[in-house]
């Protein structure tokens, strides 16, 4: 008889969830009216993933990144991506220094050597510079002049990009996009939130939250998120969901075959499961549920589903398609 796995003890998980709630409460006090956004960003951080925030200027993307970094007590770096930014400006470079015993090459680490990197307006840098982040994001290490230097855990990139003012920008290539666990659309705030903002903030600037956690606690939360159980039904749901996004798959729906050019990669399934675990941890649940997939799925899959040009012109989006696929697949899994 197969021995059943042991769920995370309830007390431990409740304590972890309480910490998560504290962090989220602090962030939500700064970023008003965007609880779902902050939940997803924090869940991605717990999943050791990277987040790409896309939205119009002034929606609080940078503030969100700063707030998360502040509450988690992590080292924070910010890089404002510009067209003339060079890879060495991110990863760091060797400089020739005069020492007592002569001149030596010394590595000056770039802003990537941090825990939480805010890559602001990432699409304004050249592809070469954007690619400088590839190794750091996936391998969590930087190689300079043949020397590989690991990045400190936790490492999370929060990148932002502006969907307008596309002139002079370099859209992220698919390989780069795939490195981001989630791509979250930051939408506008409603009237009540705006009223609160302008009435409570005297100089208009948000007050950054204080530190709630420290680095070790974040690492422990990430470890606990790994222990969250993925039930068989959810595993089937996630795997088949990612599989049916590919038009070559025989089980793919007709509209997928029609409008999708490339489907999601296996990395999408990995990140989806991880982000769902983070959401379950935040909600103090021992296992991932269908709601987690429904919540994280569009953000994880939306930017990985590459649509046909015609479909884009028709107003289709990967996110909307992912939502439809999630609903359909969930019905298929539970047989309703």
């Amino acid at each position, binding site marked *: 008889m197969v021995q059943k796995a042991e769920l995370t003890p*309830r007390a431990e998980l409740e304590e972890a969830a309480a910490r998560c709630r504290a962090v989220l409460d602090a962030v939500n006090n700064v970023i008003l009216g965007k609880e779902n956004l902050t939940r997803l960003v924090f869940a991605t951080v717990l999943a050791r993933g990277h987040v790409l925030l896309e939205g119009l200027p002034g929606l609080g993307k940078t503030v969100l990144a700063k707030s998360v970094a502040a509450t988690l007590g992590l080292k924070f770096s910010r890089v404002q991506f510009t067209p003339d930014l060079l890879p060495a400006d991110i990863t760091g470079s060797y400089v020739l220094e005069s020492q007592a015993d002569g001149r030596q090459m010394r590595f000056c680490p770039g802003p990537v050597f941090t825990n939480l990197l805010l890559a602001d307006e990432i699409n304004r840098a050249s592809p070469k510079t954007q690619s400088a982040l590839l190794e750091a994001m996936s391998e969590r290490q930087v190689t300079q002049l043949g020397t590989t230097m690991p990045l400190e855990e936790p490492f999370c990139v929060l990148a932002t990009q502006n969907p307008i003012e596309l002139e002079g920008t370099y859209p992220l290539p698919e390989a780069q996009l795939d490195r981001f666990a989630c791509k979250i659309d930051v939408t506008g705030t409603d009237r009540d939130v705006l009223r609160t903002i302008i009435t409570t903030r005297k100089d208009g600037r948000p007050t950054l939250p204080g530190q709630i956690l420290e680095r070790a606690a974040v690492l422990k939360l990430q470890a606990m998120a790994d222990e969250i159980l993925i039930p068989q039904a*959810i595993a089937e749901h996630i795997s088949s969901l990612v599989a049916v996004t590919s038009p070559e798959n025989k089980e793919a729906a007709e509209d997928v075959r029609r409008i999708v050019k490339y489907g999601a990669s296996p990395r999408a399934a990995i990140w989806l499961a991880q982000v769902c675990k983070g959401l379950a941890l935040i909600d103090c649940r021992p296992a991932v549920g269908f709601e987690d997939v429904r919540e994280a799925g569009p953000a994880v899959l939306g930017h990985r589903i590459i649509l046909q040009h015609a479909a884009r012109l028709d107003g289709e989006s990967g996110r909307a398609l992912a939502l439809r696929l999630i609903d359909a697949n969930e019905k298929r899994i539970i047989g309703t």
Partner: protein
Amino acid sequence: MGMGSRPTGAGPEQPGPLESLKRASRRYRRSRSAFRFFCRLTHLAAPGVVAVITLAFLSKLLWPPLLQALWLMPFWVAAAAGYLIARGSEWRISAWRADALADVASGSQGTFMALAEARGEDWASGVRRLDVPLRAGVPLRQIGTWAAALAAVMAVMLLPDMRPPRARAEIAVTPLTRMEDLVATVKEAELVEESYVERAQEVLEEMKRDEAPSLTAADWQALDGLREELKRQLADGERRFLEQQRTLASLRNLMQEMKGLTEEEVQRAAELLASDEARETVQQLAKAAELSAEELDELMKKCASGQRAFSDKELAFLRSLCTGGGLSPDQLQQLGQCLAGMDAAELAGLCQRMGLGELSPEEVVRLLKACKAGKAGFNAGDAESLRKMIAAAECMSGEKAGCCSGLCARLGLNPCSGERPGRGGVTRGPGPAALEGSGQTGTDFGEFEDEKFTGNLGEADVPLGFALSPPEEAPAPDAAGGDQPGPAVQFGAGNERITWHSRLLPRHNDVMKNYFGQPTIEDSR
């Protein structure tokens, strides 16, 4: 507390949400699996069921034996069910799927699924109870499909057959087979003309080759005609053989009963007795007749002197010597005609079977030729052989007549002699009557030969049933319209009034009495 009553305290303990959800999940899993099995079975078996029903419908219209295909339907459904059972993954709901549904339906957000797959008792309180039971659904469409299929089967079964079933065809074929057997028997017994038998066999073969499952009206008509013709020919054969038997019997009796010899016969015997060539034959015949040498010499003298007074022993010897058993040449020719159609080998075999002694076919052929030629002068052995042959031929004729009668009985209920096609009244046989333009009576009067009446009418021993001479007390002449007796009075053969046959009602007797002046039968009593 009475039996069966429940304790009035706390009711049965309600299962916890986790246990309740597990039960609901199991129940749902079973019912949903059954639902899916039924749906898949319907989907899989429907084409076959439709095909079988269509086949049954067409068989009703075209070929009823194909209706047996309806039996294929249960087997088809069973085969589909067996296939589905073997491939359980196609319809069986896995436990994790049922648990997932229960989890979603209860809003447990993965906790129930986690507890179903992992241990963690402290999480049991995180499971929520179902607000509404899980329902697997009712396969109404599939049930409707099966109901429609059953209705279609019943409708097909209730449809009348558009073509006769195989059983009817078999019944129709039976007379054909029976007629074939009969014709074969007739051919074997050589009772009917061979050319007609061959033609009849050709007709029957043609009917048999016809692919129609049943006999047509023309076939029935042909069979009927064939039967009538066979019956006619067999009846003729029966009459012929019976007549032959009678003739042979009379000849046999004649041979036995003839006592005297004619003058020519005596002369012929004297010549034979004096002849040296026939000496040996004479010696053998004398030995057979138990005549001594002295008696033989005396007989030779009698014959030479023309005397006619012979003893019985001498008469038998002479008859066997010179007259061929005592038959005249005319009678021998008649015998030859009777035996003309008989097989020599069969006659010889029949003689042996009857215990009449050895008679070879060659001997029979020789005798038949001699009879046809009307040759007299058989020797003693020839006469004996002739007697044997007549006896065997008589037996054979009887057998042939019996065979004809039996075959006639197979052809119809009435014997041949009483049933002729188109002839007679109540015994009229089936079949077409000859268009002779002479009423119902044909011209074949062979069986009623005219006989010359030689006896005295008054002494006739035949019960005629009516008076042939007037009675002593004739009724009133005006009443009978002449000298003939009236219809109410009949007389016996001795001219006596034997009885009064009154066909009148009692109340009419007085009228008759007053009119004729004679007592009625009631008065005579």
